[in-house]
């Protein structure tokens, strides 16, 4: 059973516009939600996280929104830049002591000039 789903395998956005990446989860027992960015042949790089007790967290051009009733997480990037082109993974952590992360399948974001 897939606990975390990223339903869009790819997304193309024009430079300067807003990029919105989405993620759905099935379990209410997660305490932290994260976004990672991955370039080819490199490991995932941590971008931003949000606690389950919040609904928004902002860091520069990146904002993560959490809608617990809908079990939905989104990442907004504004303005989008060419260097943002990468694969983005959402990940969740179970609140009860387990340290492991459960990842979605990823969304490939392409920023067009």
């Amino acid at each position, binding site marked *: 059973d897939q606990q975390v789903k990223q339903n869009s395998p790819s997304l193309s956005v024009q430079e300067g516009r807003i990029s919105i990446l989405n993620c759905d989860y099935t379990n209410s027992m997660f305490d932290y939600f994260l976004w990672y960015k991955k370039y080819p*042949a490199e*490991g995932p790089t941590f971008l931003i996280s949000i606690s389950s007790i919040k609904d928004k967290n902002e860091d520069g051009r990146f904002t993560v929104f959490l809608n617990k009733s809908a079990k939905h997480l989104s990442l907004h990037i504004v303005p989008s830049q060419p260097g943002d082109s990468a694969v983005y993974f959402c*990940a969740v952590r179970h609140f009860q002591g*387990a*340290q*492991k*992360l459960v*990842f979605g*399948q990823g969304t490939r974001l392409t920023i067009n000039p």
Partner: protein
Amino acid sequence: GAGVSQSPRYKVAKRGQDVALRCDPISGHVSLFWYQQALGQGPEFLTYFQNEAQLDKSGLPSDRFFAERPEGSVSTLKIQRTQQEDSAVYLCASSDLGLGFQPQHFGDGTRLSIL
């Protein structure tokens, strides 16, 4: 500062051979994780260490997979009698164990190809 270092970056082995993959975590990081990433998928959890103690190995797919971290720093993931389905990128991550949430920081992975 130095990040998580993994070696080798690429490993090719024949089916049935044993392989060993190494991970050097960020200095001082107590927690260490191994993940397996198949092509086109997100990373999947294999095992977790806190210092030298292996606290969770629920993701190891079979008894052919074994991980150790004897001195609480460097870790080795060993796969015995490799099979073609073991072909994947193996990622190591480490995190601090401070107050509050500490994100996991990943190495660049070892790409394992089983022929």
